[in-house]
């Protein structure tokens, strides 16, 4: 099975999980639940992934670990029965993406050389929201190699206003 097939399978499971919710709020809550459940299953991951453990034993482990989230437990059991448990992390990411889509939120990653102040963070998010016409929720990261300025990944685009990027482009220009 190649990466592409696995990706598509994960997207199908995520879409099915997402379709359980009738409202946006419900979808967000369910996405959070699935993410928490994934973390709760971390302790029994080896057991669930092992091909030598019988399905009944795996189902029992899932029931025990996820007794507070019966619906999520059923979903994980379906994955176990279909031998798709290895896709869980990908499914969680895809479920989040679907919930974001319902809310009209774009995710962004902003990298800077030094930590940004709250005002700067809000300003950056506001500028991005205006550019894309959607709410933008950003994850902030620092990387000294950026040297200065910002490097922003959002909506499949790279907005490179960093000194690192400028120096790289200048280098290419001079080599030409």
């Amino acid at each position, binding site marked *: 099975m*190649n*990466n*592409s097939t696995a990706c598509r399978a994960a997207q199908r499971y995520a879409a099915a999980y997402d379709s359980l919710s009738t409202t946006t709020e419900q979808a967000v809550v369910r996405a959070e639940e699935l993410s928490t459940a994934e973390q709760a299953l971390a302790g029994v991951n080896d057991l669930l992934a092992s091909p030598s453990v019988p399905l009944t034993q795996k189902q029992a482990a899932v029931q025990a670990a996820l007794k507070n989230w019966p619906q999520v437990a059923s979903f994980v059991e379906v994955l176990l029965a279909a031998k798709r448990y290895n896709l869980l992390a990908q499914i969680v990411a895809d479920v989040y993406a679907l919930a974001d889509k319902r809310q009209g939120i774009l995710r962004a990653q902003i990298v800077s050389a030094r930590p940004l102040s709250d005002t700067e963070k809000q300003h950056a998010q506001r500028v991005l929201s205006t550019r894309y016409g959607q709410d933008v929720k950003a994850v902030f990261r620092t990387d000294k190699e950026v040297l200065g300025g910002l490097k922003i990944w959002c909506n*499949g*685009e790279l*907005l490179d206003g960093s000194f690192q*990027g400028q120096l790289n*482009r200048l280098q290419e*220009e*001079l080599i030409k």
Partner: protein
Amino acid sequence: MAIRPEEITKIIKEKIEHFDTSVDVSEVGTVIQVGDGIARVHGLNHVKASELVDFGNGIKGMAMNLEYDNVGCVLMGADTQVKEGDVVKRTGEVISIPVGAGVIGRVVDPLGRPLDGKGEIQADKNMPLDIVAPGIIDRQPVKQPLQTGIKAIDSMVPIGKGQRELIIGDRQTGKTAIAIDAIINQKNIPEKERCICIYIAVGQKQSTVAQVVKTLTDFGAMDYTVVVSATASDPASMLYIAPYAGCAIGEYFMWQGKDVLIVYDDLSKHAQAYRQMSLLLRRPPGREAYPGDVFYLHSRLLERACKLSNENGGGSITALPIIETQANDVSAYIPTNVISITDGQIYLESNLFLSGIKPAVNVGLSVSRVGGSAQRKTMRKVAGTLRIDLSQYQELAGFAQFGSELDKESQRQISRGQRMTELLKQNQYSPLTVGEEVLSLYAGTHGYLDELTVADVLPYEKQLLAYVRAERKDVLETLNTSNELTADLENKIVTLLDQFKTVFKAGK
């Protein structure tokens, strides 16, 4: 050349001053898998088919497969420098090659980068590699001859400017030799009618390409030739684009009203490179594991060979694709495809080659579908029945092998056939002018060789041509330029041949 540091400093300062410091916005994706010259990229949501993408470190790629959640790209460089997680940028451009008069005489790779160490190429503009061939309105029928300087071809399988003539045969049968001779022969043609030649090496050994370049240089043919080289050590993607790159260079000259001769050496390896890419991109395999669109791969390339109408400048591209067969099997997938696309084929046979008939053209299986109308009238008159005569001779020769008694007419046919077969032999790198060809074929088809032994035919021809070049240049000039074999001209030839008969006899 003295290096002036202050000048370099000035240029660098200028570049820095004019450097655009605004935010660089680009659509990006991430490499999720790389290997075997193929990269799968997540993202690049709006990338177009055949668009050039940038992997950084100077490595470019071409988007080939646009799938639901990833893009399959072929890399135009070493895949060892690309790793999982690398950022890939869209360029918004299709792949193109720099073209201009400066490319003539150079050896370039399929991206137009020089390989001959003669410095940067002065280009006028960039031409996209894969463009749609000129339509019906833009063209006119093939009607001008393209002389290859090879008697067997110019007489029996004539090629016209704008034609696509396949050269097909096993390995070591002289396929490249014919193409190279055709290029060298352009030197004999007045500059106004001379073709610009483009030799495209696809999947050849570097040593073979070096040898070809040396031969062309030695014969002064590089003055009007471009060599596009994608050798066996290059990635499959380079082999795949090489013929299109060469054709793009040819089209630049064609639209300027010039005649171009392109040799694709060879399209079997081109198809193999495309098969490799397609299988790695997980496209479904078909017959002989080639992908379904392998016919289109070659048809769209060879359709670009054409003769433009006079309104468009009247330029032309003549294509000589080469196909290598395995054990003389012309019914394999790629040979049948290319045979059906082209306007005829020159079929070279290893049996003929090994029995000393060089060029080893199989007269029965070689045809030219449109070249006949482009043949010079002088040549058509002299060699009109040559093909049929030789085919009949080969049939009769088969009977004669059983030692059966033959009537006089059959014996005459066999005797003539043997001499004509001998006369059509020609050494490599010794193309003849059209006048020389007509003269020597006239001698053959009008019985001047009948009284000679077979062994004397080639010495006779050699001495005849030397005699004419020295003593009767006027006749040769007229034959080279004239399109009609007038009674007066024919009389001159007859007188000349009669005179030479005594000279040859005296010399023996």
